[in-house]
């Protein structure tokens, strides 16, 4: 039995959220999304290209019957800009949910917790279903929850860095205390990073670069799907505790007489 991931009005069987950025072609993206098994994909809000040669947009490639589109506020460095972009995304998609990102600076792309909190409060007041991207700080995670976030998305490591989960201990503390779903977002480099997030108890994982910039994105998407399922199953199975000393798997009784030493 697989229980669904639920928050706000949304329900998903797949626990992977996959970004749509950085693919070399839209066709490759479509194939990778399908291989990942995801049901929710992220997009960004940007000015329309007025050069006249823009034809198709990303929406022409995403089947909205198959995927729920989650707009983000990527590229915003102030709460004010993020709120503005969230409102625009709601107008474009007629959807209330948004992945809130308020970043601190261009080089680290680390979340600005103060700006994120302030934007989260405002958007929750306006009726948005806010998924708040943030750092792996357990206190900030609780503050975002109190500010009305429907899900908190702690970063495993910086966006696009492929460093995996740098502080599993913090993620565990966040998970232990959370009253909303925790979705590990950012930093995934390979399948074991996804498996680890789920083994820790994360409700979901959001990734983009790890698939999009792999040499074979479709195959990597498949690996991520398998890792998500493996990690989630391992978590639900209840792993054995770590012990300092060995514990034999074969019976110790009835062993043949040992050679004299």
């Amino acid at each position, binding site marked *: 039995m697989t229980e669904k991931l639920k928050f706000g009005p949304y329900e998903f069987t797949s626990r992977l959220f996959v970004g*749509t*950025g*950085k693919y070399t072609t839209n066709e490759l993206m479509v194939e990778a999304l399908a291989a990942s098994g995801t049901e929710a994909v992220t997009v960004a*809000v940007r000015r*329309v290209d007025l050069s006249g040669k823009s034809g198709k*947009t990303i929406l022409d490639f995403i089947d909205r019957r198959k995927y729920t589109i989650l707009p983000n506020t990527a590229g915003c460095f102030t709460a004010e800009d993020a709120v*503005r972009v969230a409102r625009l*995304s709601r*107008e474009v998609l007629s959807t209330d949910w948004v992945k809130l990102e308020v970043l601190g600076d261009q080089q680290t792309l680390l979340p600005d917790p103060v700006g994120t909190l302030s934007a989260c409060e405002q958007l929750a007041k306006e009726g948005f279903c806010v998924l708040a991207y943030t750092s792996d700080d357990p206190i900030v995670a609780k503050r975002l929850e109190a500010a009305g976030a429907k899900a908190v998305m702690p970063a495993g490591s910086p966006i696009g860095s492929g460093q995996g989960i740098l502080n599993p201990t913090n993620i565990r503390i966040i998970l232990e205390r959370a009253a909303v779903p925790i979705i590990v977002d950012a930093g995934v480099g390979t399948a074991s990073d996804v498996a680890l997030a789920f083994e820790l108890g994360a409700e979901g994982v959001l990734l983009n670069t790890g698939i999009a910039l792999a040499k074979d994105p479709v195959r990597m998407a498949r690996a991520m799907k398998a890792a998500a399922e493996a990690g989630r199953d391992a978590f639900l199975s209840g792993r054995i505790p770590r012990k300092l000393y060995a514990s034999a798997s074969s019976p110790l009784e009835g062993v043949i007489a040992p050679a004299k030493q």
Partner: protein
Amino acid sequence: MPAVFVTVNDRPLELADGATVADMLGALGLAKAVVAVERNREIVPRARHASERLAEGDRLEVVTLVGGG
């Protein structure tokens, strides 16, 4: 014919006097595009595109969705 001058995404655009948001989108070849429009920082909901008339000096933002994470 009198005209109205606005900016769209920081680019100047000349439209016929009395032009609406829908006329502006049409002039840019975006009549059927999936976009959101802000006029002087206020969103103009899609339902009002055909009725909202633009004024001289209006600053418009027209956004859509692109790939992102």
